[in-house]
C-alpha cells in the first residue's frame, strides 16, 4: 500500500478547500469576527453610569462626526503618517543606495541595519523618553547646547515639539525596514541599463533619476503602502512617550480610541472610533493603489 493511501482523503485532496481552511478560519476568527463585533457594538448607546446599552444605530456615528477630538486626531494621524513616511522613505532609499555594494564589510553593515527592528516599539519609546529628558537626556542637552531648544520647553512636554519627538523615535526604528525593502529592489535591478547609461556619459544623479527611480517605482509604492498602513495605526510610541499629550498634541485616532475605551469605558464609542480609523485607512490605501497603479 502506498504512503498516500494511508493518509486521510482530505489530506491528499487536490481541492483547494482543505488547504485554505486553516488560514481562512484564522482570518475569520481573528480578523472578520472582531470587525463585525465592533460594528455591532457601534450601533449601541452606552450609559456610562448604569452600563445599560440601548440599540441606537446612528448615535455613535453622529457623535463621531461631531467630536472635535476626532477631527484633531485625524489631522494629527495624517501629519504623523506623512512626515514619518517621507522621512523613512528618503532615509531608507539613501541608506540603501549607500549599502548597495559588494565590497567587503557591506554585508555586515546591512545585517547591522536590522538591529533597531528587533527592539520592541515600547522599549524604543522608553529609550527615547530617556534621551529626551530635560535634565539628563542626551538629545535634549545636545539641542540646548546648540540653542535650538530651551530647557524650559521639554521636547515631549511642549505642544509644538512633542509630535516631532515621537516621529523621530518611529523613524529610528522603522527606517531599516525601508532600507531592507529598497536594498532588495536595488540588488534585483539589471546591470545592463546602467552600463549603457555610463557609456553614454550619464552622471550618477542622471542614472538615479532616469533609471533607478523608474525601475524601483513599484517597490517604492509597495513599501509606502505597507509602511503607510502601519503608520496610520500608530499607538505604542504615543502611549509610552506622551500618552497623547501634552493636551492632545500627539493624540492619533488609535490613541483616542484607546482613551475612550480604557479611561472612559465607553466601549461602543471606542469601537466606532476604531472602525472610523479602519475606514480611513482603507480609503487612503485604495486611493493610493489607484493613483500609483500598485500591482501585487
Amino acid at each position, binding site marked *: 500500500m502506498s504512503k498516500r493511501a494511508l493518509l486521510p482523503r482530505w489530506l491528499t485532496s487536490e481541492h483547494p478547500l482543505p488547504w485554505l481552511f486553516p488560514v481562512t478560519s484564522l482570518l475569520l476568527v481573528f480578523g472578520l469576527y472582531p470587525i463585525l463585533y465592533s460594528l455591532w457594538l457601534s450601533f449601541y448607546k452606552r450609559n456610562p453610569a448604569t452600563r445599560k446599552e440601548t440599540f441606537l444605530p446612528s448615535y455613535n456615528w453622529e457623535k463621531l462626526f461631531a467630536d472635535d477630538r476626532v477631527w484633531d486626531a485625524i489631522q494629527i494621524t495624517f501629519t504623523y503618517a506623512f512626515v514619518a513616511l517621507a522621512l523613512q522613505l528618503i532615509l531608507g532609499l539613501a541608506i540603501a543606495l549607500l549599502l548597495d555594494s559588494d565590497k567587503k564589510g557591506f554585508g555586515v553593515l546591512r545585517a547591522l541595519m536590522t538591529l533597531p527592528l528587533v527592539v520592541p516599539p515600547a522599549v524604543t519609546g522608553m529609550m527615547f523618553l530617556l534621551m529626551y529628558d530635560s535634565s539628563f537626556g542626551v538629545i535634549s542637552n545636545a539641542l540646548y547646547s546648540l540653542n535650538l531648544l530651551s530647557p524650559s520647553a*521639554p521636547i515631549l512636554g511642549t505642544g509644538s515639539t512633542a509630535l516631532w519627538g515621537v516621529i523621530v523615535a518611529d523613524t529610528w526604528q522603522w527606517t531599516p525596514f525601508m532600507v531592507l525593502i529598497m536594498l532588495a529592489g536595488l540588488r534585483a535591478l539589471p546591470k545592463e541599463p546602467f552600463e549603457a547609461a555610463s557609456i553614454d556619459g550619464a552622471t550618477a544623479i542622471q542614472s538615479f533619476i532616469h533609471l533607478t527611480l523608474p525601475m524601483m517605482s513599484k517597490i517604492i509604492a509597495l513599501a509606502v503602502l505597507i509602511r503607510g498602513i502601519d503608520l496610520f495605526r500608530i499607538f505604542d510610541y504615543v502611549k509610552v512617550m506622551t500618552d497623547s*499629550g501634552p493636551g492632545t498634541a500627539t493624540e492619533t485616532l488609535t490613541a483616542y480610541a484607546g482613551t475612550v475605551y480604557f479611561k472612559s*469605558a465607553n466601549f461602543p464609542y471606542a469601537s466606532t472610533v476604531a472602525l472610523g480609523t479602519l475606514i480611513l485607512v482603507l480609503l487612503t490605501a485604495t486611493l493610493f493603489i489607484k493613483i500609483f497603479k500598485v500591482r501585487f
Partner: protein
Amino acid sequence: MSFKRFNKQNFIIDSANAFTSRKITKRDFLKKMGVAGVGISAYSAGMLGSGARPFFGNMAHAAESNTPEDVANFLREAGKPFAGTTIRYTSEATPPTNVLNELKSEFTELTGINVEIEIVPLEQVLAKATQDVQGELGTYDLYYLDQAWTSTFAQDCIDPVEYYKAKPDLAMPDFDFDDFSKPLVEGISEYEGKWIGLPFDIPIFTLMYRKDILEKHGIEIPKTYEDFTAAVEFITKAEKENNIYGTGCQAKSGHYSLECDWTQAVWGHGGSIFGADKNFSGNDEAAIEGLEWYQKMLANSPAASVTSTWDGQWQMGASGQIALCQSWAEFFPGWNADDSEVKGLWEMAKPLQGSATLRSRDDVGFGEIPGWGHQGGSSIALSRYSKNVDAAWLFLQWACSKDIMTRCTLAGGFAPMRNSSYEDPRIVERKGLVGSGTTRHLDTVKWTIDNVMASEPDLPIWAGVANNEIPTELGKLLTGQDYGGSAKKCMDQVAKLVDAVVDEAELG
C-alpha cells in the same frame, strides 16, 4: 555611597548633569553609570515616570507579627476548606500594597490560601477592573478602588459590613469596623450609605517644606495661599543660580495627577467641582482664581512638571530641586529616609488655608467634600463576580486587620486607616525619629484627615471624567496647545464636556 533606589537615582541625575555640563568625561560618566548598575530598562522604568507611586519604605521596619492568638487560630480553622485556592488582586504600586505583597506569605502560612498580587500602573488597574466587571469575569477576587472610582464600581462589590454579618463563621474576631477612621470611610469607601470596600490607603495633600531653605531666606512656614505664593516666587528668584525652584507640580497632561492638583487649587480658593444644581462649576469665579494661581505656581516649577506625575514630583523633592510642595504626605518618609540626600531637611505642616470660605456640602453636588487637603485614598473591595469569594474575604479581613495595617504603616511610613494604629506603641515611639521609619509626620496627617480632608465627587462616571476630559483640557491650557493661556476659556470648554457626559449618563 549606598545605592538604595532613590539615592541611586539622584546619583545618576547628578552624574548626567555633570557630564552634560562637561564637568566629567564620558569615560567617567560611563564608569559612574556602571557603578550605579544602569540598564536601559531599569533606568527608564525607574526614572522616567512610569506613573507608579514612589515607595521607599523599609521592610525591616515592618516589625514582627503581632497577630493575636485568637485571630491566628481563626485564620487556621477558617482557611482549611480553602487551602490550595489562589486568589488574585490587582493594584497600583501603592505603599501599603507593596508592603502587603511582602507580608502575604504570613497569610498563606496560616490559611494555605495563595495570593497573587498583580502590581501595575493606576491607569491599567482601572482598565483591568473595568473589563473584569463588564464581562463579570471574576478574574480578580479583589479590586483596588481609587476613591474616584468608588461609585463607578459600587454595583460590582460586596458590602463588607453586610458580609461580615452574613457569614459569622468567616468573621474575624475583634475585626472592629468602628476602628476605621470615620472621615476615611465616608470619603473613600462609602457610596449611598453602603460600604463598597475597606479603606486601605490614604495619600493626602499636606504642606511640605525644606526648613533649611526657608531658614536661609528668613521665610516663615506658609499657612495661607498668599504666604505660599510669596515664598515660592521669592525662592525661585533667589535660588535661580542653584537651580532650585519654589515648588514643583505633577502636571502631566491627561493624567489623574494633574486633576488632583487642579481640585486642590479649586477648593483652596473657595470653589468646587460641581454646584448644588449638579452642573460643573469649575468655570466659576472662585475656581478660575484657583486655576490661575496654579498657572502661576507652574511658572515657578521645574520644566519637567508638565511631564511629571506623582513620582516625578517626588523626584524633584528628593533631588533637591524644590523648596516647597503641597502634595501627597506619603512623599515624606522617602525624603527623610536614612540614605536620602535630603534627610531631615523636609518638614511637614498643615495644608494651606484659603482666604475664601470653603463651600458647604449643601452647596456642591454628587457628594463632593470641599476641604483644604485633597485625599487620594483607596479601598480594597470584594468582587461580586469572584469565584473564590470566601477565601478572598478571609484575605481582605487579614489585610485590613489591626496588626497588618499598623505594620504596613511601620514599613511604609504612610498614614494608617485605623485609629488604633496611631496609638500603637510601635508607631508612637518613632515620632521623635529623624530618618528611616519616622512617624513624626503622622500627627499632621491625622489632623488633616480629621479636620480638613477634601474628597472628589461620587458619581459613577467620575473615573472617566477625572482621567480624561479634565486633565486633557488642562494639559492643553498649561502647555500652550490651546486657549491662549486663558483659564476661563479652558474651563468653559471643560464645563461643556463634563456636563455632556453627565447628561449622557442621565445623572444631571
